[in-house]
């Protein structure tokens, strides 16, 4: 198949697609293309749109390729879609999403333990907007639902895939936590907690056992830390 012919076919596919088009999908449609040809043609198209100053561009998003308008035309196209676009996400929604993105698959109680607030409403909103989905149930006590991000999540934030997100550690560095200090105290703290776990809970506000109970359950989010570790491979750790 000639390069020009393949380029035209791929362009037609991109034009007629309603979602990011994956390489695998394009290969299955054009089995005659030699390996690497489609990628080459895609690069070609992207460059052509760029140099010919088209009003649109070819972007890699959500594990696929999709045509997008250029940023310069944002104001005009916004007018076209006025009143028909979903609202921006709330801070609560973004916080929850970032926890799910980095810790998935993750239970609601883990999310709440990190955020320190009730998160059911936010989860419902995110599910409704297809930014997350139920990935199944955890093997922990009560078999709670576990959540993960979706392809729509990638598309919404213009990400190629999850590795397009910065490592979670980068945010720590950006905040100026000296890495060694952070790690050192983390290690010390957790060791202490293990050693003194039982005693610590007993020493405390006299006569306030009711509050104690509340505090403890709110902090632990109703699960033991060990359990959490066993079923949630931390993304950050994987990449570190």
């Amino acid at each position, binding site marked *: 198949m000639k390069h020009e012919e393949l380029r035209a076919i791929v362009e037609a596919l*991109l*034009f*007629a*697609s*309603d*979602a*990011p*088009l994956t390489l695998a999908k394009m290969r299955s449609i054009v089995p005659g293309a030699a390996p690497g040809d489609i990628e080459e043609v895609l690069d070609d198209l992207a460059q052509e749109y760029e140099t010919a100053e088209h009003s*649109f561009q070819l972007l890699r998003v959500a594990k*696929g390729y*999709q*045509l*997008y*308008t250029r940023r310069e035309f*944002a104001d005009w*196209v916004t007018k076209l*879609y006025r009143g028909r*676009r979903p*609202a*921006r*996400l709330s*801070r609560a929604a*973004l*916080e929850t*999403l*970032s*926890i799910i*993105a980095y810790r998935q698959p993750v239970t609601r109680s883990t999310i709440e333990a*990190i*955020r*320190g*607030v*009730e998160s059911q409403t936010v989860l419902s909103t995110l599910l409704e907007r297809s930014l997350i989905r139920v990935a199944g149930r955890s093997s922990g006590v009560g078999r709670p639902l576990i959540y993960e991000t979706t392809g729509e999540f990638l*598309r*919404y*934030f*213009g*990400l190629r895939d999850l590795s397009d*997100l910065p490592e*979670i550690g980068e*945010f*720590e560095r*950006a*905040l100026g*936590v000296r890495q060694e200090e952070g790690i050192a105290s983390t290690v*010390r*703290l957790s060791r*202490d*907690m293990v*050693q*003194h776990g039982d*005693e610590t809970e007993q*020493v*405390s*506000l006299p006569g*306030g056992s*009711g*509050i104690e109970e509340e*505090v403890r359950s709110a*902090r632990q989010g109703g699960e033991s830390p060990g359990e959490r570790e066993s079923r949630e491979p931390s993304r950050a750790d994987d990449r570190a």
Partner: protein
Amino acid sequence: MYDREQDHAMHDEESLMTVGEEPTPADVKGDVNTASAQTLYTAIHMGSERLPPVKLEIFEGPLDLLLHLVRKNEIDIFDIPIATIAQQYLEYLQLLAMLDLTIAGDFLVMAATLMRIKVRMLLPPSVDEEEEEEEPEDPRAELVQQLLEYRKFKEAAGHLAGREEETRELFPRRATGVEGVPLGEEREPVGLFDLLGALQEVIKRLAAEDRYQVGGEDVSVEECIEVIVDRLRTAGEIAFTALFDAATTRRQIIAMFLALLELVRSRKVVAVQARSFDAIVLQLVS
């Protein structure tokens, strides 16, 4: 319109902060602290009976408020002066109570935690337990850990917000697909009841179009199986309703449907849809 709302919210937040940053002289004195502890204690007990319905919107949660206080006071997060922070935290809650905002239970739980830590910091290190520990545990340890963890994700959320803003300026080309069949969405296999529901729709539609004929040619299920496989081979995938385009009698519809069920059962064909009640699409299993 949205932007204006956001501006408004930000303005509110700022004005609240300004009020909070200037505690009146009376507030700084010690006895207010005990008074607020008393109110909080009562509030906590009320809170456990009926959960406060309205969420505090100004801060995302108690950890967010604590981080704000840490930042405002330029405090080293690893060495938080807990008495000062606890007092400022309570001042905020008082302020919110004064403004008649309902304070979410999570904020009260944190207030209790802060007070517990404060008390433990005041107590001499447990002398009665004669175990000579090299390093007695810092009562703030767990809270610091929690704050650091939360701060990381808060920052990550900020990054997502930035991406959201950038991506909102780009509009994707989105063809509408053909005959209501979405192209690129992830589709899931449908069950028997979905198929039966779709069949019901087809029968209703044919009845309305008055295409029922009495008599007509009989077809066997086997023939229908061949027809379906042939059509799928040429078209790749077809809409469930398209199966019945040529059908004119109830017998033909039923034969076609049974043929489909047989193909699905033997895993030669899969029926999928993007989401519940969307068009059902048939595909050959390769």
